[in-house]
């Protein structure tokens, strides 16, 4: 357990080594250092997890202080790591999935001239992400939080020669930092009223000092939620994620699907006591989740670009996690985080192989018929797709999403409306997932496959495919074996969901509706893209269909709105006032002095009569003043 510090230390060492000496190494050595450091980190976390299961520390929590960071007055902030079931599970997923994606990257990026920079950034990302997860206080968490944001920015704009990539990176950095501003203010508020920033002490003090429904708890909850929606690309700050797909595909898989974007979910789960004390803030979390999962689902249905479609799917699935948090189904949210990390990473890795084998073609309408050409890709992608849609019994997504849908109603904080939206979301998910699969792998081949993925790329995909299938068996519904290994373990860190038995619908009924929605979604996708594609085309050509299509495709017009409301005014002011209006006050004074000087100078003519007249006139006035006043 005291090896905990090694989990972030290995990737940091990898980053430093690659940043300082990376350009002098061969590509192979760079890949070995880059993937190896994360591999070691994954091994350490597996080892620690083993220890944790076999002989859990007292109170299921272990703290390791590395050094004293800030110590001012009553503020004590150490660099310290806190390991409990919540941070352990997330760290395991991040390091293990991270390692698989690093191995994949060794193949994917092998021809890129900047491979050492790529792996340096990726290692820094993993280090920041585990720091975020293991942080024992909110400021260290913020360090990891901003660190992953930085890596996200760097990696989205990795191919920096294209200005569009730089734009996407900047947008991601700035939009997530809008959320961070709210989170920072939340931190100030928490410190002001609770006198600490250590997470566990904070939770204890909040529970002790604040009554349920306390306005301070609500304010804190909403401010932290601001940070969470920024990082996790939820309404109203979701606009950056689809653009973030400009980065290399392994980046999209690791950062913008599996790990970083779920940091908001982690933050809210970590701070769950605040939300228990602030039911209205928690309800807001649920509403954000429900709204996001539907809106993003519609947007996913309309994207022609495979990566953008997957990006909207990510936004939508994180919406499910927020919904779960909003009804107090903490473990369900983390369960869905885990399975989602498996299958969504796999979907992106599959998309990466497709794109690469088709000369960087990302438009799904130019793909098709890849089933026979890329069998490994097809089968792994199909498995991941089924897991995403939640195909019953055999896939991990079925168990995690089913749990959320049921608890959206069954939890004491649950509501009928939430359940209804969640089931509708299953329909949307199934429809857009099979749309992607049908468009890329079925129908006629429209592009020629010029390259097949190597082992470094396919092996991680196969591992992830297996995980996408079996990853759900750690928590199954009552009527299906009733395994609750996962939730039992998490309940040492997160409270179990309070099921309102009196009114709750049965789990079996809920799963039945979910399966029905899934089948309907599949049928719609089949009808629209296999059976009658010409019907779909005519639908998007009709006036109403076209308008809706454009509206959804452009993310419900939110970019358009933000540009006009926020971006342009700032840019306009910066441009208009580039010369600094304040300066003109001072130059104005200077002008005035000069003007006065010019005026006085005119009197100095050099002519005697002029001077004599002036003296006489002056004397006259002087005498007059003396005489008459």
């Amino acid at each position: 357990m005291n090896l905990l510090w090694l989990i972030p230390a290995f990737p940091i060492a990898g980053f430093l080594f690659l940043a300082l000496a990376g350009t002098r190494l061969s590509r192979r050595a760079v890949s070995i250092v880059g993937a190896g450091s994360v591999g070691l980190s994954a091994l350490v976390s597996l080892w620690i997890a083993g220890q944790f299961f076999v002989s859990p520390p007292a109170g299921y929590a272990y703290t390791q202080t590395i050094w004293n960071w800030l110590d001012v007055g009553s503020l004590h902030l150490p660099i310290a790591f806190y390991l409990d079931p919540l941070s352990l599970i997330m760290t395991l997923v991040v390091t293990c999935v991270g390692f698989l994606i690093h191995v994949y990257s060794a193949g994917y990026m092998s021809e890129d001239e900047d491979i050492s920079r790529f792996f340096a950034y990726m290692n820094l990302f993993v280090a920041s992400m585990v720091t975020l997860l293991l942080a024992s206080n909110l400021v260290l968490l913020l360090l990891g939080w901003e660190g992953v944001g930085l890596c996200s920015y760097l990696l989205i704009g990795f191919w920096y020669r294209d200005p569009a990539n730089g734009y996407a990176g900047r947008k991601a950095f700035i939009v997530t930092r809008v959320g961070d501003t709210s989170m920072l203010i939340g931190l100030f508020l928490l410190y002001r009223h609770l006198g600490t920033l250590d997470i566990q002490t904070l939770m204890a003090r909040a529970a002790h000092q604040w009554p349920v429904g306390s306005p301070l708890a609500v304010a804190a909850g909403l401010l932290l939620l601001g940070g969470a929606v920024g990082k996790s690309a939820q309404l109203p700050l979701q606009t950056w994620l689809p653009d973030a797909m400009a980065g290399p595909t392994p980046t999209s898989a690791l950062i913008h699907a599996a790990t970083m974007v779920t940091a908001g979910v982690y933050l809210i789960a970590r701070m769950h006591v605040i939300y228990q004390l602030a039911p209205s803030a928690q309800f807001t979390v649920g509403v954000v989740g429900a709204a996001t999962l539907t809106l993003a689902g519609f947007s996913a249905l309309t994207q022609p670009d495979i990566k953008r479609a997957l990006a909207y799917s990510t936004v939508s699935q994180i919406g499910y996690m927020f919904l779960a948090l909003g009804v107090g189904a903490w473990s369900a949210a983390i369960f869905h985080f885990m399975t989602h990390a498996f299958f969504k990473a796999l979907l992106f890795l599959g998309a990466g192989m497709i794109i690469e084998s088709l000369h960087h073609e990302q438009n799904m309408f130019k793909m098709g018929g890849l089933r026979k050409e890329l069998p490994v890709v097809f089968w792994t992608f199909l498995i991941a797709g089924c897991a995403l849609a939640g195909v019953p019994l055999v896939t991990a997504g079925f168990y995690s999403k089913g749990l959320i849908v049921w608890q959206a109603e069954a939890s004491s904080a649950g509501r009928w409306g939430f359940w209804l939206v969640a089931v509708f979301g299953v329909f949307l998910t199934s429809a857009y997932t099979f749309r992607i699969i049908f468009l890329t792998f079925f129908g006629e081949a429209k592009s020629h496959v010029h390259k097949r993925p190597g082992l470094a790329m396919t092996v991680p995909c196969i591992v992830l495919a297996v995980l996408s299938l079996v990853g759900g068996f750690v928590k199954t519904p009552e009527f299906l074996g009733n395994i609750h290994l996962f939730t039992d373990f998490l309940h040492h860190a997160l409270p179990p969901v309070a099921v309102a038995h009196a009114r709750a619908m049965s789990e079996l009924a809920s799963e039945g509706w979910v399966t029905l929605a899934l089948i309907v979604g599949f049928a719609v996708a089949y009808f629209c893209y296999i059976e009658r594609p010409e019907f779909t085309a005519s639908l998007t050509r009709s006036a109403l269909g076209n308008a809706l299509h454009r509206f959804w495709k452009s993310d419900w017009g939110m970019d358009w709105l933000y540009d006009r409301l926020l971006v342009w005014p700032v840019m306009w002011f910066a441009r208009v006032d580039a010369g600094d209006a304040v300066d003109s006050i001072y130059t104005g004074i200077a002008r005035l002095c000069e003007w006065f000087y010019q005026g006085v100078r005119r009197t100095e003519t050099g002519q005697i009569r002029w001077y004599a007249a002036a003296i006489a006139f002056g004397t006259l006035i002087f005498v007059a003043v003396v005489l008459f006043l």
Partner: protein
Amino acid sequence: MMLVWLIVILLAAGVVAWLGGRRSAAWARWVSLLAVLADLIWAVAFWLRHPAQAEILPQGHWLAQFNVAWVPQLGIRFHLAMDGLSLLMVVLTLFIGVMAVLCSWREIQTGVGFYHFNLMWILAGILGVFLAVDLFLFYFAWELMLVPMYFLIAIWGHERRVYAAIKFFIFTQLSGLLMLLAILALYFIHHRATGVYTFEYSALLGTPLSQRTALLLMLGFFVAFAVKLPMFPFHPWLPDAHTEAPTAGSLILAGLLLKTGAYGMIRFVIPLFPQAAHQFAPVAMTLAVVGILYGAVLAYGQRDFKRMVAYTSVSHLGFVLLGIFAWNTLALEGAVVGMIAHALSTGALFMLVGQLYERTHTRDLTRLGGLWSTAPVLSGVGMFFMLGSVGLPGLGDFVGEFLVLLGTYRLHPILTALATVGVLASTFYGVQMVQRAFHGPNVHQWKIADLKGRELLIMAPMIALLLWLGLYPLPVLKTFAPAWKGLERTTRSLTAAARR
């Protein structure tokens, strides 16, 4: 005694460099470098020996001091003294001083001797400002650093150097006059109350003043320091001076001269006039927040690389001012860390612009672009200091800004929230700068040499120190803590006495 040697060594080195510099430029450079290095080594050794136990008290317990009569008839003493705050500032001054000599090594090729004379005398003046506790001596040092700075800008600057130098001179000179008036008024009022003529800081503390007089005198000091800081709306001299000055000039302006303003606020404005300052605090803090936001947005709008960095200073020093007028432990510790971190990150950015200018002969951001592919190390270093500037946790600026905001929140939540938006606004110019200079296509086909040798030698310690300040700022916090306790106790007892 050592304190006076610190200053004398620099003054003497300046003269020697000037005289010897006529024959050999290398002589001037080496003499200056060795003198500043010797001072720096002494100061750091002193710091290591004294992890700051002493506190400043009205009676005057200092870590070190030098006190002799200068003009006894007028009560003027040559009194230098050092507490934790001045110690930190002295170490910073000498460190930046070494960097200033090193970064002029190639850039300055004309009048090398006189240049180094000015450089040494500026540094000596700044040391005097940080160490003087006799107000007359303080004013003397304040003026001493001004004149050589004027020459530095006016002789070795860029295209509009004379305009910028005169603007700089008029702003600081006029505001300095206000301070002189306030000092003299305080001197006479103190005499009327006690019958003693003295400029001694610890004696003038707690001079009984009517509310109106205190506010007026406080404003006299405040304006002088606010111009130096620079506070909105007294900032317009800064973009011009920074932009036109040679690299070392910008480095010293940003790294040190601005800090004398902040130092003066902490040392003089609030302790001498605690109640008036307290009354005035909401105004000062509002202006600080306006400066934070205004500076950030204007930085975003600039095309000239140097001018852009200059406006970021307006924004960053806004945080320092905000922290000072919050006048509590968190905010003050934050302000001091912020001062040091700003000297490092902004100073390094100015050096980087200098190095870029030597290579490309342009500072126009729109004419740069895509430099990463030709000079990756230089671009990476630029990225690093940009991240410092935008307040990335783990680097020094974050610690400063975070502590300031944490300390200010309990007084003014709304102002704090607006200042936090300023942290966000720093992202705008930060990422835009990286995009325009280093990322994007290399449209103008730049092919430039990467950083190496001496340039790396300059950048490496700046990077290391900014990281150190961000990850382990305890030594700095602990050094300042006793000095702060002394200042706080002084103001508290004075306020209490005035209430009675």
